[in-house]
């Protein structure tokens, strides 16, 4: 993929649907290929969900932007339960752009959801990458978030050991 095509692709999109600064560190391939995939992708990463939010609810909200091809719920690697993120794949780029424009930053289940482009789902990516099975952010979080299992894992462990002492 040549650099100029990439730049023109990037320019094509308004700010609302442009790429964020996040890049998946586990991506197999170079940065240019990754950005190219992101700019053509019809898959979104959806974050900051409650652990209790269901696929049905996500479907209801995201189908307002277009026909959904599939939803892959993010699961805790160990417990195999929802851990607060998912991938939503649309049939067309246009529909997925709509979702970024109109859903990113609004609420689902009383939580502000975050959407970002994803280079496309690969088997294994449905699992949390944190040490304890969930998402990495839930390892280090210091606040108490009822929708995401209370305190972050590290603090939660500390509290637990303290209690047992």
């Amino acid at each position, binding site marked *: 993929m040549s650099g100029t095509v990439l730049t023109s692709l990037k320019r094509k999109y308004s700010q609302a649907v442009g790429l964020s600064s996040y890049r998946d560190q586990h991506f197999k391939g170079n940065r240019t290929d990754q950005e190219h995939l992101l700019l053509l992708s019809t898959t979104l990463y959806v974050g900051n969900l409650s652990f209790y939010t269901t*696929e049905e609810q996500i*479907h209801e909200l995201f189908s307002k932007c277009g026909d959904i091809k599939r939803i892959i719920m993010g699961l805790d690697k160990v417990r195999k339960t929802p851990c607060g993120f998912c991938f939503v794949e649309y049939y067309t780029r246009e529909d997925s752009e709509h979702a970024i424009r109109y859903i990113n930053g609004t609420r689902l289940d009383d939580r502000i959801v975050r959407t970002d482009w994803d280079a496309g789902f690969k088997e294994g990516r449905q699992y949390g990458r944190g040490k304890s099975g969930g998402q990495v952010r839930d390892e280090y979080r210091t606040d108490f978030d009822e929708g995401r299992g209370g305190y972050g894992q590290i603090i939660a462990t500390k509290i637990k050991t303290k209690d047992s002492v």
Partner: protein
Amino acid sequence: MQFLAKTQTLNKPWEPVFIPKFENYATDPNDLLLCPCRALLAYIKRTEVLRKSQRLFVTYQKNHHVEASKNSIARWIVNTVKYAYEHADTDTLQFVRAHDTRKLSTSWALFNGLSSQEILRAAHWSNETTFTSYYLKDVPDLESRFAKAAILHTANRRQKKYFIFLIIKYFQYLDCLWSQIKNLRANKWAEKQITRPYLAFDGVLCEALQHTLPQIIPPSHNDEMSYPLPRVIFRMFDYTDVPEGPVLPGSHAIERYLIEEQLRRIIFKHAFDRKDCAASLLSYPMKNKVPLNYMIVEVMFGELFLLPRCPRLEIYYGSTFIELCKLQPGSMPQVLAQATELLFERLDSMNLSCIERLTNWFAYHLSNFQFRWSWDDWSSCLQMDPELPKPKFIKEVLIKCMRLSYHQRIVETCTEDFAPLIPEKPLSHFKYEKEGSGSLPGTMTAHQLIQAIKSKCTPEETMGILKDLPNPLKEDDETDPTYHPLRIDVFVSTLLHLGNKSFSHSFAAIAKFHHILKLLADTEEGQIWVLRTMFEVWRSHQQMMVVLVDKLLKTQIIEPSAVANWLFSSEMQPEFTKFYVWEIMHSTITKMSKHVDKLQKEVDDAKDKLDAYKRRINDGLEDDDDDEVPTESLIERMEERLDLAQNQQKRLFLIIFQRFIMVLSDHLANCESNGIDYSTPWYKWCIERLQQIFLLHHELVYRYISTLETLLFTSDIDFHILEIFQQFCALRS
């Protein structure tokens, strides 16, 4: 003097009726004789000696003067009206009742230039529909049609009578604009809403070269032309709705139009960024001169309610409203709540598509604001027939809220008395595991099937299990029935039951056993039975049904026509007033259209490629294109497929219209034979759904118009149904 008009109730404040003396207005002394004040005073004076109580009217029989009864007064009125008509040379009145004074006086008042607002107030009518449809009747036809148009036209807060079908509406937008422009010209083009930066350069500009602008000649009409559909003026707020700050320009003032137009431009321009849009709307340059929030809300709803389709995704307006609320937390939510109340009050006359969009928006909006709403303000709906628009709206909003959250959450947001409107908890029903299922013919097989699927059997093995089920449709040695209801029932309900944990589980089950499902549903009857079975399992989970039908269509297990036939089957008719049924219907039609469009594009692309290839060969160029060139026979096959799909599409529409005519005719005939009023809530929803199909898919339906005219909408069907078709035809003519 205080009295209660027919349409007033005790708990509404009485509006005093003020009758002015004519002497302030009349120039002709003869007119003074007609002054009601003078007549009243004279009457009081003359009857003074006869009156024995406080009541005004007394009877005039000699020596027997008592309080006049209601009937006597009515008779007097009738006599007077008759007298007036007999002595004027019109004979439009055949039969007069005393109550008719309401329509006569108001109708004549309208023709003599009174505004609709004044008439409505004087007669204590709450909205224009009552007036236009019930009272404005006894005037010659042409005039009354004109008057109806005029009154709906000038009606202030009327937004959703939206009978876009009625051709009179067509003139509204242009007519109204034209009269505004004429007014503007009369006022020497002075208005306060357009920014005129050139005024600052007046000195330079007045000395500059003047150009003569060419005259613009509009093209003349020819039959090939297609015109845009009629547009209706949307006005939601009246200046009295705005409590403080700058005054809202009148509904038909050019200022209102100009602001609307500029706000609409902002909404159009920023459609790809809701945050920009909200910020730009709020920084509208003339914001200090108008109640901006009210104007924004009105224009946004105007766009959202545009017919036949909303110009952007509905969620664009919804998410922009949320952004507006974030930017103006102190005022915007209140205006939106006020707007919601206004719209709610007008649900009875709102167009169905607009009710649906309002429902979707409101549920979505609530989901972003913790579902906080003072539902109790609407508790009067709990006593109504639940099929009427207002209770229906609340129920559908709660269903949509539940789809965005969960059942318990909705139960907690409403008070207990709202229980009748709260949706059922969505659960699957698997009859083969219920108590008493032992007596069902398929139970044994269903249990075997569960075991087999749980131990990961192959799809073919399940066919083996189903094989022994007898076909209840088979009689003696006759030929095989076209489908096997019991096998379908056992297999589909078991499969859906096992996949009931989530959409993904259900989809996985359908994908794995796709081949078996196709075998079982190889005829349309079989496909309808699949859908029936699905309904039996998931009837309390509307979203699941919507999603499953979608999946079954996409995987080509069922065909669109089967969906239409199923939705019109007798067991689905009680579901007819529920919105999800039509969500399924419209998505089926849309899916069919997308399929046809896709095939059409493929054929076009292939033809282009072949043409380009031929040109290259003709020009003697080497064919160095890597792309495969489609052969003539390949294109022929593609065209055959397209043809097939187009026929399927046409058939789908014909089925839908035919079934509509059937269910509506049945209803009308039943009502007639039982002597009941046909105009039940069910009928109203149903006939509006028919209208909606016409309107939402008008481009497609229009292609079949001659078939529809000769085959379905023939002169022998009921007038009420035919009328809808004729209105649709009028829309395009």
